[in-house]
């Protein structure tokens, strides 16, 4: 019996369309991307119907985690040549008689949210190990009445950038007591407007005809 011979096909596939598609998608993502800022904790925000966009600059963000820890972040403002973050860190450090090296300061400028007692700030900036950094951050910024470092941060952030808006990114499960306390601290710095970060959720409401 004769063997059935399958026609030999070339194993090569023409990949051009695939490459085309990839190139297209890649360009799209590269152009539209805004990097997701790194945050020390995952925060699950509540939802609301508000569709106002979060301001992108001149903000100080207060991150409130599920277990009521507070983290702080501020940006360099519209004009990054002012080095607002450096100024704030220097001023807060002065209050606690801490000095930071120029390297530490410039490194701090590029970092995002933080949450640790100011005494541990130096270690936090210097460490390269993600785990160590996480360990340092597990307690958030102290804000009890004897040592209210959060108030200090907010005060100096406000001083360095008077246009800064307060943005609160709280977790659904965070206690309102803590949020209220933070709002009071912010209000003490003469900011009465708060932006609460929420997820968009559409709701239809109709008035019943009676």
């Amino acid at each position: 019996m004769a063997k059935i011979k399958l026609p030999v096909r070339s194993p090569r596939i023409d990949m051009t369309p695939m490459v085309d598609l990839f190139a297209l998608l890649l360009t799209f993502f590269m152009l539209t991307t805004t990097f997701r800022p790194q945050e020390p904790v995952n925060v699950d925000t509540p939802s609301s119907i508000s569709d106002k966009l979060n301001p992108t600059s001149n903000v100080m963000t207060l991150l409130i985690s599920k277990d009521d820890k507070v983290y702080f972040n501020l940006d360099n403002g519209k004009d990054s040549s002012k080095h607002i973050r450096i100024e704030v860190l220097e001023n807060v450090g002065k209050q606690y008689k801490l000095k930071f090296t120029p390297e530490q300061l410039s490194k701090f400028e590029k970092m995002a949210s933080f949450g640790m007692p100011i005494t541990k700030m130096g270690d936090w900036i210097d460490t390269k190990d993600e785990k160590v950094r996480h360990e340092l951050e597990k307690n958030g910024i102290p804000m009890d009445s004897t040592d209210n470092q959060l108030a200090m941060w907010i005060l100096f952030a406000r001083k360095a950038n008077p246009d800064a808006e307060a943005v609160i990114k709280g977790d659904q499960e965070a206690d309102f007591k803590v949020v209220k306390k933070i709002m009071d601290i912010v209000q003490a710095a003469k900011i009465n407007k708060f932006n609460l970060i929420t997820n968009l959720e559409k709701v239809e409401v109709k008035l019943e005809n009676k």
Partner: protein
Amino acid sequence: MAEIIANEGGGKKKGKKRPKKHSTSIDMTPMVDLMCLLLTFFMLTTAFSKPKVMEIVLPDPPKINDPTPPKIPGWRTVNIIMDGKDKIYYYVGIADPTHPPIPVLIETDYSKDGIRKILLNRNKNLFKQMEDLNSEVTKGKLNISRDSLTKRLRELKSKDAVGPIVLIKATDKAKYKNVVDIIDEMAITNVARYAIVDLNLFEKKLLKKKKRELGINDSDK
């Protein structure tokens, strides 16, 4: 050896000198690999939707030499008390032990048939006006810009004289989500006036009594 040389020589002599024919297709696999990698990277790091924010403006904290705050008509005030475990109560009027009748706390919930229905019913007048204005614009009957629409909506809100004044009160056990939900409910039902205030002592007593009636154990967390 000699043979090879002869062969080469023969080759040269024979045909014309022709450049070697290259295949026109390039192996694109490495390029595809790289693109795949970059694509995945960008897809994962990108924050697609910009976060949305809800704006609230709180009044200045009262100062020592402030004039006494204006009296709020009792029939307009709706007090919402939020407790832990997603419990919510409301009462109408002012709870003042020296001015009976003492209002009764009513239990409700965060659903659309709960607190929303109550607020919507009390805010019917304003809600209707705003709805009408909105629908006129969307239907194209009224041609005004978005800015002037928001301005007119705000005017309607500030002119409102019959709608409820909502006092939002959260106990220590309330979650952040509850408060955001209630403020959101204000936006949904177009309530013009609301404020976040603290519970007073008498209200705490009322709440305790109500919870005892409902058989909710207060001590558990």
